[in-house]
């Protein structure tokens, strides 16, 4: 089973990739075999004073995701995602969710080795 989560400003494949991970509006989860999508709202992480990235990592880990596509990930979120065994593709802001997924499928998304944003 291969499931990827894409940080998204809305619930569909045609919404824009949300550049933020922890405080993303939500996650479009795509099953790469069937291309079925599921939307996970991230409102509960957005309103947190701290720890949004950690909670967002918990949310997508629970959904059985093994790859994340997003814009930026901070150090604590990155540590949490690594612990959950979720690989990360970064710097995908400015694309639609559909385009980000297409880029991933064509093998043009690099697996990040570290966070690309300073911690807060």
């Amino acid at each position: 089973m291969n499931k990827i989560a894409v940080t998204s400003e809305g619930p569909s494949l045609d919404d824009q990739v949300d550049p933020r991970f922890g405080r993303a509006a939500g996650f479009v989860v795509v099953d790469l075999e069937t291309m079925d999508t599921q939307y996970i709202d991230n409102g509960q992480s957005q309103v947190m004073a701290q720890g949004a990235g950690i909670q967002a990592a918990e949310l997508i880990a629970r959904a059985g995701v093994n790859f994340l596509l997003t814009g930026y990930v901070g150090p604590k979120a990155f540590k949490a995602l690594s612990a959950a065994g979720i690989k990360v593709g970064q710097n995908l802001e400015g694309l639609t969710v559909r385009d980000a997924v297409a880029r991933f499928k064509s093998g043009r998304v690099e697996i990040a080795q570290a966070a690309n944003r300073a911690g807060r």
Partner: protein
Amino acid sequence: MIVSVASGKGGTGKTTVAASLATVWERPVWGVDLDVEEPNLHLFLRPAIAGSETAWMTVPAVEEAKCTYCGACSELCQFKAISVFNQVILTFPEMCHSCGGCLAVCPEKAISPGRRELGEITWGVAGRVEFLAGRLRIGEAMSPPLMRQVKARLEQMLAKGGDAVIDAPPGVSCPAVNAVLDSDVILLVTEPTPFGVYDFKLAWEAFAPLGKPMGAVINRAGLGNDAIYRFCQEKGLPILAEIPYDRSVAEAYARGRIIADLSPGFKETFVALRDKIRALAQPSPSREAAHA
């Protein structure tokens, strides 16, 4: 008694006033720097440091061999300082607020008290003033836990008698409220500029609900306009002292000198301030009581 010297706006003269006030106060008196994020009272009091200790707070330490990854701690923690992912448990000590909830809720007793360094507490003597200060560790985000430890040490010392003048942090958020919370009188230092007035109002709104006697010190008097005077009158807030907008004060401050030592006139200003603070701390006898 404890007097805290606070302000809304930074740079209005809290430390200037606190240092001078401590200097003219009757002994024994403690000059306490609770502006732990940027302590500077020592620059004026110039204490001989007698001792210091590192301050710590409790954070979870997990013995992973005992952990069953049930997630009870993770679910409880509102600050995401401890988190369980499948077969991995992570702690983020810098996020922890030290509530102790995870230690209490763990069914396997896999979590024990670890510690995170908060900063340093130092003490010493500055002439006739006893000195006490906290200094937050660089990178530490929370100052109230360290401030509470400084205040606990102060309380121990005050148990033997004496008073304290607290140099509080600026602003009106948790650290500022924490600094004034245990004082008997709150002194608000401001300046008659639009920024000074604006932040003074915020400070008044934040501290008035504490129901403690409050008074204002107008620093740089002669600058700006009369809005601050009108506000104080409207709220019944006594103006206990005015420090003139004067080049000699700025020069003395820049040299780390104590304003009360500048001239007999300045000394008199702070002695009068001290006496007015003492009077404020006394509950004034009501008229009815006088008639009875």
